[in-house]
């Protein structure tokens, strides 16, 4: 007997994945960036032989180690949650999605875990150069790991390089390179790692500023600020460039996500970019209400950024739902080249594809080859909309517009603020004024929470913006879930919430104590 999926299990499974991913994403960006910054500092030590640089390197390395451990702890669950909580997903796309996870383990995790031991314990056991190489290899390992998981994530946003096989009831990889080098994957990887580099640079700026405020470790603080600010400025500019690239790919591949990012319900040609605004929280697609209480926008900029054409039409939520736009800029199935389909029609086509899949399986079992070929042909003609068949109404295709709108602005506004901060810091540092500017030291210190806020906001834009899809257009979240009792996931949700919160508190307490102790005692006593 087949029971219906309890909607509660989908919500709780999503909540659990979001919770564990949010916790993991608190620690990963710092690991990505700090690993390189530590390696750069150690390189300066090896090049100059100045013991102060060794002391500086070891101090930041201690903080890196504390952060790394909790990143590992929160990371293991994510890989296995694809199986425990999203079992249907694991089979439907496991042929493609599993490969990056395995490569991540073989190529990245072993590199990281092997050389991190030398990085921490090998100071007196291996040569200076081997130790330095270990620090760089740890950083490369951490960033390679980001590459593979982001390739996997990008494929969820933009599934390419595969075909559906009705015999195995899953999507199968047909071109590995399409998966690896999809434009979404390239932009997502570069944008995400550069955000990690900026996070680490601001972390170093903030803590160094604290030392300056306390009038302690002035030399360490000044040297660290210089390295972090140069690194941070280069990476924050790169972050802006890759952010632009990401937005461009979203416009082509996920127009609904772009519409949500802009709070755009009715599309326009020469559409302006909303700089700041307050979206109407009660607004629903097609209800005729105003979409914004107030907004300030730059004319034509959204068309320019999204389609590299100032006159381009940017479809809004209502246009996408109704199919009221010419998809000349969007990468769409060939059937939609002339005119976009309304979502209601996509739902009908999706149901046709799913029913044809069922007919195919039945015909194969019965040995009816003619019926199987007919069903296969119907399924192929409509497969681009397979996932829509699981939706109950077109409105389900719309993600949480207000949340995505605010998250996007949080990420972008802070991103530009970080560029400005790095420039100001470098200016005062170059004039030897950094130690006297207490206001700037406070600004640097209090920018630390802001960079974490920007990181989380970026994650929300990427992942909540993808809803209702777990695989864009092919599998909605609700059809991806494991068939377990809702109470089981409720229990594990609270267990994870409790253990990760406890570990976060421990991490913050240890980290702040280590910072207060400073590098004099090696950062460990």
């Amino acid at each position, binding site marked *: 007997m087949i029971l219906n999926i309890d909607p509660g299990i989908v919500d709780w499974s999503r909540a659990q994945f979001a919770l564990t991913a949010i916790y993991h994403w608190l620690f990963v960006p710092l690991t990505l960036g700090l690993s390189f910054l530590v390696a750069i500092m150690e390189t300066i030590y090896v090049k100059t032989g100045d013991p102060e640089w060794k002391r500086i390197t070891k101090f930041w390395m201690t903080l890196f180690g504390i952060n790394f451990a909790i990143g590992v*702890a929160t990371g*293991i669950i994510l890989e296995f949650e694809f199986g425990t909580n999203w079992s249907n997903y694991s089979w439907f796309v496991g042929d493609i999605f599993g490969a990056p996870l395995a490569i991540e383990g073989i190529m990245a995790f072993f590199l990281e875990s092997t050389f991190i031991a030398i990085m921490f314990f090998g100071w007196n*056991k291996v040569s200076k150069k081997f130790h330095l190489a270990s620090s760089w290899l740890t950083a490369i390992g951490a960033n390679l790991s980001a590459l593979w998981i982001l390739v996997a994530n990008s494929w969820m946003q933009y599934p390419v390089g595969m075909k559906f096989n009705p015999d195995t009831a899953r999507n199968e990889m047909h071109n590995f390179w399409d998966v690896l080098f999809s434009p979404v994957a390239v932009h997502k990887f570069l944008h995400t790692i550069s955000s990690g580099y900026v996070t680490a640079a601001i972390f170093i700026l903030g803590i160094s500023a604290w030392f300056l405020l306390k009038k302690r470790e002035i030399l360490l603080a000044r040297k660290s600020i210089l390295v972090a600010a140069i690194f941070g400025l280069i990476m924050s500019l790169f972050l802006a460039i890759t952010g632009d690239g990401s937005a461009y790919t979203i416009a082509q591949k996920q127009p609904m996500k772009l519409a949500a990012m802009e709070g755009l319900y009715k599309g326009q040609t020469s559409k302006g970019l909303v700089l700041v605004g307050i979206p109407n929280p009660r607004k629903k697609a097609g209800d005729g209400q105003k979409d914004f209480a107030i907004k300030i926008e730059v004319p034509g900029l959204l068309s320019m950024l999204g389609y590299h054409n100032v006159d381009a039409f940017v479809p809004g939520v209502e246009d996408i739902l109704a199919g009221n736009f010419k998809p000349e800029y969007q990468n769409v199935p060939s059937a939609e080249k002339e005119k976009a389909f309304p979502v209601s029609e996509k739902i009908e086509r999706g149901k046709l594809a799913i029913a044809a899949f069922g007919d195919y399986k039945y015909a194969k079992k019965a040995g009816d080859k003619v019926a199987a070929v007919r069903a296969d042909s119907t399924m192929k003609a409509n497969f681009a909309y397979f996932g829509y068949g699981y939706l109950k109404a077109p409105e389900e295709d719309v993600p949480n517009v207000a949340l995505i709108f605010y998250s996007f602005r949080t990420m972008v506004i802070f991103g530009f603020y970080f560029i400005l901060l790095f420039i100001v810091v470098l200016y005062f540092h170059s004039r030897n004024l950094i130690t006297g500017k207490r206001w700037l030291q406070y600004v640097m210190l209090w920018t630390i929470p802001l960079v974490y806020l920007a990181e989380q906001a970026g994650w929300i834009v990427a992942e909540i913006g993808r809803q209702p899809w777990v695989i864009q257009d092919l599998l909605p979240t609700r059809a991806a879930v494991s068939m*377990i009792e809702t109470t089981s996931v409720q229990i594990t949700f609270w267990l994870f919430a409790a253990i990760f919160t406890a570990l976060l508190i421990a991490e913050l307490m*240890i980290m702040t104590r280590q910072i207060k102790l400073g590098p004099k005692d090696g950062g460990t006593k």
Partner: protein
Amino acid sequence: MFESLSLFSLQQYWWMIISLLGAILVFLMFVQGGQTLIFQLGKTETEKKILVNSLGRKWEFTFTTLVTFGGAFFASFPLFYSTSFGGAYWVWIAILFCFIIQAVSYEFRSKPNNFLGQKTYDIFLFINGALGTILIGAAVSTFFTGSQFSIHKENLATLANPVISQWQGPAHGLEAVLNWRNVGLGLSIFFLARILGTLYFMNTVEEKNILGRAKKQLFINAVPFLVFFLAYVFALILSSGFAADPASGVVSMESFKYLHNLLAMPVVLILFLAGVVLVLWGIILPLWKFEKSASKSIWFAGTGTILTVFSVFLLAGFNNTAYYPSTYDLQSSLTIRNSSSSHYTLTAMSYVSLLVPFVLAYIWYSWWSMNRKKIDTIEMEGDDHAY
């Protein structure tokens, strides 16, 4: 190179890689076994610190191997991943919890202001060592004893519930620990990990008091290990198994299936026997000639562990056997033929697998670089990053 191989050859190749990763994982569980011995072998704070730091330089290998084992299983046999993880929910979640608490414990335990206190982190390490090994052993044992699940790929066409793999027992995996054979393998792995832990300490630690206690613990743990392991092996070769017809894929019960597998695959039999002999030799050697041989015994017992576990995995998956059998619906059982990734994906992954020797080489080199000098009290006092 790999493109020309048949799908079945690739499936076999990947089952061997999974088996090898599983085997290396069990060997590396000396870390878990060692964690359960910290309180018994270390009587002073310095001794405990030596033991923790000796393990603390290797724990990430075990952790990474577990994660890679999971990732490789996902990539090569995704139907196992979706069926077992999504079905035996509680047993896998319990295992994951054991590893979450381990990951922070080394780094946090001796740091000041660590919120939960050093004792809590040491207890975390003990839980990881004890429960983690027993549960992983019990989960792997279901490869021979079976689980209750059904798989219907046509469910995808059911809009209200398209889930393909569905668990049919209310305990969602916890029922595995109610089967004495599963518990038997779990306890075998637990005591084996403790044996390997004592041998690892003999290899890396330079403190007489610790080594004396390790020798005693080696004997104490060898006895229950042999009892549980031999009982498990005898039960296994006498039990019925899950045979899969290679032409039709139909799964049926076959008396003495695993004994038949051993006899049908003499290479596996030889690997298994050689592995058992090497483990026993690794145990006997330090008890017999401690001064001369204790330090290198880990390599005998470790190699033996890898060979034994590798052959046990081959026993589960090769010779037309369902490696993840369903006792609820025999025809839902997973074989390496019906649960693998496509030819293309296995081929692409096979090229990636060529990196494995390179990975093993740098692991060996770094291990050698770090272990040239044994850990002692002096090193602990001078190391500013000691756990």
